């Protein structure tokens, strides 16, 4: 099973450490002048794909990102981590506002077919829309098996044994290749791109495409009516002792009395 060709979906999102601010007109969140980086779960997927290549399980790792021109920075990061080449599917900023996981899944599945991929790898969810859909939908569109929320991946006799994070514990499944994998938090710890690798990544090939090149219609399927701040929780009081605390909780009927 050597020589797997791996496609990795890399979404550009607002950096996880940035405090989110809602636009005053409630149409979305403020993205201008805000630090962006690769979706952390996608970074884990890139790392795992690169490790598969280092273990000679994979022959080529191709990073793909759909979105505005700045996604090219995200792809350079993926290539600095070890991806061999990348494909930027450009979607203008206005269309991107309504680009949904289903659109991205359609593009990724076409890319997978065109590149004769054996594995499509994505993060389990993006930390901006928190949808948790893309990988599963790529699997559906290609009729491939899916191993989502992966925390461990091993190969055995032409199939993959995957440990998945589920509610209340772990689960093990086997999937045939070709397959779609989605990365959970504990699959690995992504490496930092070193300066020499960042320089090298600048010379790696990046193809530039449009959704129409793959025959994918990116017309909106839903509309965002508004985006608002969550209700603010008021800080309560600081108490002076454990006794006061237990009395208050008991009065509220929250501890047995």
């Amino acid at each position, binding site marked *: 099973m050597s020589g797997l060709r791996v496609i990795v979906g890399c979404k550009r999102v607002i950096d996880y450490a940035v405090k989110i601010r*809602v636009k005053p007109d409630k149409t979305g969140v403020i993205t201008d002048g805000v630090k962006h980086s690769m979706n952390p779960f996608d970074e884990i997927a890139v790392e795992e794909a690169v490790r598969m290549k280092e273990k000679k399980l994979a022959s080529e790792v191709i990073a793909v990102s759909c979105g505005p021109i700045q996604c090219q920075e995200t792809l350079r990061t993926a290539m600095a981590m070890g991806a061999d080449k990348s494909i930027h599917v450009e979607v203008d900023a206005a269309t991107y506002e309504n680009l949904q996981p289903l659109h991205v899944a359609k593009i990724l599945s076409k890319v997978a077919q065109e590149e004769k991929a054996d594995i499509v790898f994505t993060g389990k969810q993006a930390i901006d829309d928190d949808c*948790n859909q893309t990988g599963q939908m790529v699997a559906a569109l290609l009729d491939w098996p899916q191993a989502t929320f992966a925390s461990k991946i091993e190969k055995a006799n032409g199939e993959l044994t995957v440990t998945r994070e589920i509610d209340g514990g772990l689960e093990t*499944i086997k999937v045939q290749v070709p397959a779609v994998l989605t990365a959970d938090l504990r699959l690995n710890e992504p490496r930092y791109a070193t300066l020499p690798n960042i320089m090298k990544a600048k010379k790696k090939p990046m193809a530039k495409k449009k959704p129409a090149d793959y025959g994918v219609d990116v017309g909106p399927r839903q509309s965002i009516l508004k985006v608002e701040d969550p209700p603010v929780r008021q800080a309560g009081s600081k108490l002076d002792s454990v006794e006061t605390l237990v009395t208050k909780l008991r009065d509220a009927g929250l501890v047995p009395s």
Partner: protein
Amino acid sequence: KSTLVIAEHNNEKLTPVTLNTITAATKLGGEVSCLVLGSQCAKVAEEVSKVKGISKVLLADSEAFKGFLPETVTPFLLATQKQLNFTHIVASASAVGKNVMPRLAAKLDVSPISDIIGVQDDSTFVRTIYAGNAIQTLKSDEPVKVITVRGTAFEPAEVGGSAPTENAPGEAANSDLSSFVGQELSKSDRPELASAKAVVAGGRGLKSGENFKLLYDLADKLDAAVGASRAAVDAGFVPNDMQVGQTGKIVAPELYIAVGISGAIQHLAGMKDSKVIVAINKDPEAPIFQVADYGLVDDLFKAVPSMTELVGKK
């Protein structure tokens, strides 16, 4: 208008979050049917038939559904949908629901709606984005709405109905694409984290896994589940299924006691809908105090044992 709820269960018992999901489904305004799909799961179908608000139970019982693999479940759901033409298909935003529903949606060529916290009308839904740091209201234009529901955002449906059960249309078939090997669930006598009425959670301040015993002792007095912050999980104190937060469990109990947790944004996203929040931390500047109803600036190694003792004294 008609809605299908996909029940979540372990073939023996209905998972409580299904009751919350049924409540969300009844807000959509159509008749609600509930599909119980599994292996030897007739007992679950009986349990579901007694839930208020359900008009029909559909049963799909086959060994092929072992492990609820999306490769076998999805074709069956498609066959059922083809026959019965539901306008809404709803499941809990659990590990199973999140795995299967997008696959089903893509097969139906519709854009799914994940993890909703509110229903405004049959096509307008409220959900959180950026780990709960913003709230989005969206209108879906899809002919079939495929939805997952955040259980903690809806009250559980009551028991007290009697719906008829029939076999679901569709034929179960094995798939050679994937196979189920096994599960390793953490065993505990305590209530389940996601549905517990009270939760005691520990953070890096606990300093070690052994020290979590302090929390277990308190939890047992309160009939509470025990959770942890990501920092405590990453430090290896406790297993990751105890993690409360953006990338772990979202909880909303009546009482949440945060012990030695500073209150990172990703932790707050997982617990800030709790009814009453108590924070015990020796750092008076810890952000957790900004959301706590009752704060106690104290050494947890003294405060927690004395709290356990006081709670025990009736």
